[in-house]
């Protein structure tokens, strides 16, 4: 018995719509099996993972806090991945955006005006974009593989942040803790509805970014260009599009989004720089982008789901004593199922039994 793929003449619209759901369903099944194997009641654990965090208002706010960076980064990545630019260094661009955006409140703490925050956001985006420009430039000018260069830059960014908060940017009044001074009030991203929870404006940025990029990708010639170059670069060149400029464009957009996510996280959720400011958002966003089928609106939904797994992981740790390390394994498996299910969009899968073949031969 073996599997055989039969190419569909047309992409299946049915499976394009269904595949993320099938993938998510399979992940749930795999997750339940995993929980059972770890000696936990699968149904109860799944409840804490996916339902419990949705039952209280404050935790919905937490969901928005976690979803904001995931959505922001992932919609940027969708532009990259659709144009076949494999930026996997969003984690580094997130960090660099956070650092660039923090220059004002950390180095000029007395500079306190209403326009500090907008400046910080712009500087954050610029920082992320500038950092993403490095692998883009290396790819265009020197033909350097962007996967490896963008990833290496993540480690460099992490070490750079570590050096800053332990060295020159360390809080002078902070008892030698490795962290910067707390941001002043003009440098804090306000909460959306502070009466009910902590969710800050980062989530609004994420939704706006998703809408804007959705419009660009599906309704404008820029989006058309992104898709043509991604699907068949030679046809893109024949159309008169420049692949090199697209590399730069895609990296700048995704870098800016990751940078915005970084500074929003720091000024909204944390309030200062620390050695670690991200639980791997830049990598989890890769999963979000694919689960959302590289469609910004799908990514909003996918971002909420992945954010839920972070919260669910915490909830399950508290209530059923399941290690929070399980979350990352769980997230990792989602991407596998998503990719496997996408095969159904392009191919019909057939089982072939060797016995049948023998029959054919005997005819």
């Amino acid at each position: 018995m073996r599997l055989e793929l039969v190419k569909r003449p047309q992409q299946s619209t049915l499976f394009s719509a269904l595949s993320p759901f099938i993938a998510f369903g399979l992940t749930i099944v795999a997750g339940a099996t995993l929980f059972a194997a770890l000696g936990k009641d699968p149904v109860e654990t799944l409840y804490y993972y996916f339902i419990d965090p949705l039952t209280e208002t404050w935790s919905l706010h937490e969901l928005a806090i976690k979803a904001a960076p995931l959505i922001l980064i992932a919609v940027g990545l969708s532009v990259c991945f659709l144009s076949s630019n494999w930026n996997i260094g969003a984690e580094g661009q997130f960090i660099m955006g956070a650092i660039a955006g923090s220059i004002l409140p950390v180095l000029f703490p007395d500079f306190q005006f209403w326009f500090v925050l907008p400046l910080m956001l712009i500087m954050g985006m610029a920082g992320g974009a500038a950092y993403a420009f490095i692998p883009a430039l290396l790819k265009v000018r020197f033909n350097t593989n962007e996967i490896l260069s963008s990833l290496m830059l993540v480690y460099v960014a992490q070490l750079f942040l570590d050096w800053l908060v332990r060295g020159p940017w360390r809080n002078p009044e902070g008892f030698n803790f490795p962290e910067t001074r707390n941001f002043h009030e003009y440098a804090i991203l306000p909460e959306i509805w502070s009466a009910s929870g902590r969710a800050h404006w980062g989530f609004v940025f994420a939704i706006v970014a998703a809408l804007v990029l959705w419009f660009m990708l599906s309704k404008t010639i820029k989006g058309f260009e992104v898709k043509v170059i991604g699907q068949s670069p030679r046809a893109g060149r024949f159309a008169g599009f420049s692949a090199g400029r697209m590399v730069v464009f895609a990296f700048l957009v995704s870098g800016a989004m990751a940078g915005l996510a970084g500074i929003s996280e720091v000024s909204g959720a944390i309030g200062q720089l620390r050695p670690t400011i991200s639980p791997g958002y830049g990598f989890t966003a890769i999963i979000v982008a694919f689960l959302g089928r590289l469609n910004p609106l799908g990514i909003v939904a996918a971002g909420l789901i992945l954010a839920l797994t972070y919260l669910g992981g915490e909830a399950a740790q508290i209530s059923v004593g399941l290690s929070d390390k399980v979350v990352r394994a769980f997230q990792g498996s989602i991407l596998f199922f998503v990719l496997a299910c996408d095969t159904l969009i392009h191919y019909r899968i057939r089982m072939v039994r060797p016995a049948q073949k023998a029959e054919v031969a005997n005819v």
Partner: protein
Amino acid sequence: MDQSDPSQTEALLAVRGLTKMFGSLKACDNVDLTIGRGEIHALLGENGAGKSTLVKMLFGSLEPASGTIHWKGEPVRIASPAQARALGIGMVFQHFSLFEALTAAENIALSIDDDTPIMKIAERARNLSKTYGLPLDPFSHVGDLSVGERQRIEIIRCLLQEPELIILDEPTSVLTPQEADKLFETLERLKGEGKSILYISHRLEEVKRICDRATVLRHGKVVDHCDPKQETAASLARMMVGLEVQNVTRDVPASASDHRPLLEVDRLSRKPATPFSVALRDISVKVHAGEVLGIAGVAGNGQGEFFEAVSGEALQDRAETVRVSGHLVGRLGISQRRLKGAAFVPEERLGHGAAPAMRLSENLFLTRYRTDAREYMGAAGTIRTSRIAAAARRIVEAMDVRKSAEDPEASALSGGNLQKFIIGRELDREPKVMVVNQPTWGVDAGAAARIRQALIDLARSGSAVLVISQDLDELFEMSDAIAVMHDGQLSAPIPISEATYEKVGLLMGGADAGHPPSPLEEEAV
């Protein structure tokens, strides 16, 4: 069937009722084929008639759904190419099954099913190449070789296995007429040694010349057996196509008064962009209003590079190197050249002329978003999909594009129908200059005739048409003059009244301006 059909017992290969399905399409439908010893048997049919599918089943690379194969009277199941080779069936592929990064000897070693050392294989290959007059250096890398040389490797690889049946799939489509003659000598010699040959072609003249019998396929079914020497090219074509193919009409240029050059290329030179591409050297050519100029040449002599340079996918150093309707466009990209009135159709349909996974309407937009920006685009770069869809419908109708869905993806169309759409997409703009690379490669006869006629009509309406093709018949049918490209150089155009196959063929082999037709000479450049 005629009386010359050898009886079952003495047949080398007898195929009965062979059927192969791809999805719901019957690529081969109940095919019978009998090949006797020492005969050259032609397998005739249009593109898509099922010839390749049939021979792939004979060579074990496709599994039949039903039917039997008898080899020397015994029923056999050919499950893999290795089994086919063990039986004594050898194959020379159309799109060569060679490995560019490997040497000739390594390529040969890969289809020898035991562990013969590479040096021994090289020696045997060298001996064989001497015996059959097919010069070959076993240690050259395939990536550096010309198409003709590559075919020699394929043939020697096949002969080394001492096959009794040799299958050749469209072997002459990449050769000059003179090279083809050499090949026919080799085939006659093999036949003299008692080997059988299954010869697949759609070139009727050569089938008439060398084949003893023919089996004709149409839509996957055997429609006729015949002795090609008794037939005319026209009667063979009728069997293949099923109906009279309309001949292309080409009268004398109508607008002789307005004979301005619309496309001018002046001393175009280009360094090879990749290790596998050809340098262009000092190419000058003019195409006038009302004229179809053909460029002949064996594949891989710089046609693709020339097309890229003219289309603007590759820019030139000087603006005056290329002129479209008098405008200097050498420094302008492809979109700007389109705006000046030029249109381009590349050789590769899927992945170059069209994005495979995109719909026809999107593929229309692909080359026309600049020229028809006012029509197809709204404010802020938005795309007006309904207008584009309407235009796509118009083209589909004008060119009679057959499709299975309202607005299907490009890859869902057959080669001929997609090519009709791509040509129609450009014709719809009424371009002043049209440059087409391989207009009917892999296209069925009906669609090919339609495409050729459309291009001629475009020229007659006052545009300049440049056709690059490896198909000499096509060029002689369409062109007002033919120039020949060899090793990155272009000959002076020969007016069609003075052009002969012989003359053009010699130029294709490089017999021009002190360039001897030796492949080794090519390497030195």
